[in-house]
């Protein structure tokens, strides 16, 4: 590695990235090792220790209304939030990218239908539809993920389709075709690597967004089952004790903010690096 390469790498690493990764690793590790941090589990309660303020009796973040340790519940809630964030984005990304590639490459009916769906989505206040749908099929972890995937794959499909439309006219792609490459090879080997950058940015920001959405819906009682520890549910709980116990609502919210901020910082950093518009040079290999 010569000096120029080192300095280029150093230039890419900035405060935003370091801070974002730091926040993310805190929340990821605490969720992964939830059972180590809270060996008694998230639901161990002690009715004698109800609504204890932070720091009392070894409850660093205090306890809630039925004596459950808030510090123990937060990592477990994190598992739920991160699951929702990752799974919903993964599903919509795979579906969206697949359909976007097909629609952009082959055009035809699929393309027309896709663009109509995208129009509808742009003209509708989406959370209202999500609330309505969840009110109908009922709350629950997998239903929530289903609704998110159902409503978000279009974003990826639109983005990929647009990129494919411009890529397919490029000389490099035309040349590959002239060399006799199959459709699958052109799409997967030559187009996908060239358009995946913005998709990854969108996905990162959507993980953040979906964690927020999950907590919001759960807070309204339209998301995760209240018996399962989740950040939104803990906040809804804490709302009832605002007058007497500020800590019940404060710490889960901080946990959400830390996690979402981490993803947002990472997404922003990725956008600065990967967005071809900002950069003017490709990112092959």
């Amino acid at each position, binding site marked *: 590695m010569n000096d120029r390469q080192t300095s280029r790498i150093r230039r890419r690493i900035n*405060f935003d990235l370091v801070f974002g990764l730091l926040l993310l690793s805190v929340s990821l590790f605490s969720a992964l090792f939830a059972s180590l941090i809270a060996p008694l589990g998230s639901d161990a309660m002690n009715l004698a220790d109800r609504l204890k303020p932070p720091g009392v009796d070894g409850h660093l973040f205090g306890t809630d209304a039925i004596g459950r340790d808030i510090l123990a519940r937060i990592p477990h809630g994190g598992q739920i939030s991160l699951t929702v964030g990752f799974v919903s984005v993964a599903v919509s990304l795979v579906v969206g990218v697949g359909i976007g590639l097909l629609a952009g490459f082959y055009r035809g009916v699929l393309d027309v239908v896709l663009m109509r769906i995208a129009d*509808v989505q*742009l*003209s*509708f*206040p*989406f*959370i*209202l*539809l999500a*609330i*309505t*749908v969840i*009110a*109908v*099929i009922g709350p629950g972890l997998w239903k929530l993920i289903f609704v998110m995937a159902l409503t978000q794959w279009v974003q990826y499909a639109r983005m990929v389709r647009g990129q494919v439309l411009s890529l397919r006219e490029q000389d490099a792609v035309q040349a590959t075709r002239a060399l006799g490459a199959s459709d699958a090879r052109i799409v997967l080997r030559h187009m996908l690597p060239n358009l995946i950058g913005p998709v990854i940015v969108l996905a990162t920001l959507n993980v*953040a967004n979906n964690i*927020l959405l999950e*907590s*919001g819906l759960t*807070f*309204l009682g*339209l998301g995760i089952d209240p018996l399962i520890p989740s950040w*939104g549910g803990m*906040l809804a709980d*804490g*709302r009832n004790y*605002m*007058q007497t116990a*500020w800590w019940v*609502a*404060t710490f889960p*919210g901080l946990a*959400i*903010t830390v996690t*979402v*901020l981490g993803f*947002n*910082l990472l997404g*922003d950093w990725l956008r600065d690096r990967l967005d071809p518009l900002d950069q003017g040079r490709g990112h092959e290999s």
Partner: protein
Amino acid sequence: MLVVTLLVAFAVRLSGDPVVALFQGASAPNKTDLERIRKALGVDRPFLVQYTEFATGLLTGNLGHSFRNGQPVSELIREKIPGTLVLAASSLFISIALSVPLAISSAVRKGSWVDRLVRLFSLIGLSFPNFWLALMLILIFGVGLRWLPPSGFEDWRSVIMPATTLGLILTATNVRLLRAALLEVLSTQYITVARSKGLPQRVVLYKHALRNAAIPAVTFIGLQFGGLIGGVVIVEQVFAWPGLGSLALNAISQRDYPVLQGTVAVLALVVVAVNLLIDFSYGLIDPRINVS
């Protein structure tokens, strides 16, 4: 629009028998009573018939009657519109008052500590759940300092906290959009020309840069307006603010189809209307654009 109402109407109808929901908690009525009530509310008819009625009613401003208390839906909505409008207008005001100066000071000195601070704060603003900000405001100003009424609608001071919550969240997005748009404009040649002919910084910024940066920023704000509606719903709920959002949420829990349908239709209409208004505003912002 048509698709939206159809989707909502269809989804709402799947959600279970409204007549049973009406009696939640009360002693179960007998079968003949149930039938009679279904007939009276018109929910015994096929879905398409009900939908056609709703759609034609929407065109004439007749949204049907609430299942709960028989009040006309249009009346219920009219009662709640001022609440939502006041909230939306005051939060928009807060956000413009904050985001324009912040975005300018950040874009002018790109990379400076002001810029870094503004960017970090706007990113943090995007990262909290809006209802958590709402709860924290209640905790500090309602419960702790007792300066403001924690929720409900008592007097003019009640609007301060919900509007601040929404305003701050909006500011976070707007600052980012406006900053990006300003940076783009500031790097163009006509700004260099304006500067080189000796115009004061103030004129360059406000007259040349801000106007041109407003167009992309305003477009994005229009696109995000749907998300704002979602924020309104949650914030209204947290502050027990009488508005369209709480109306819709209550209608969901009570399976009050006509109210839910009507509210969602009106909100969707508002989103479409706002985007249309934004299209027209281009002409005002930039006289070169001919709207007609």
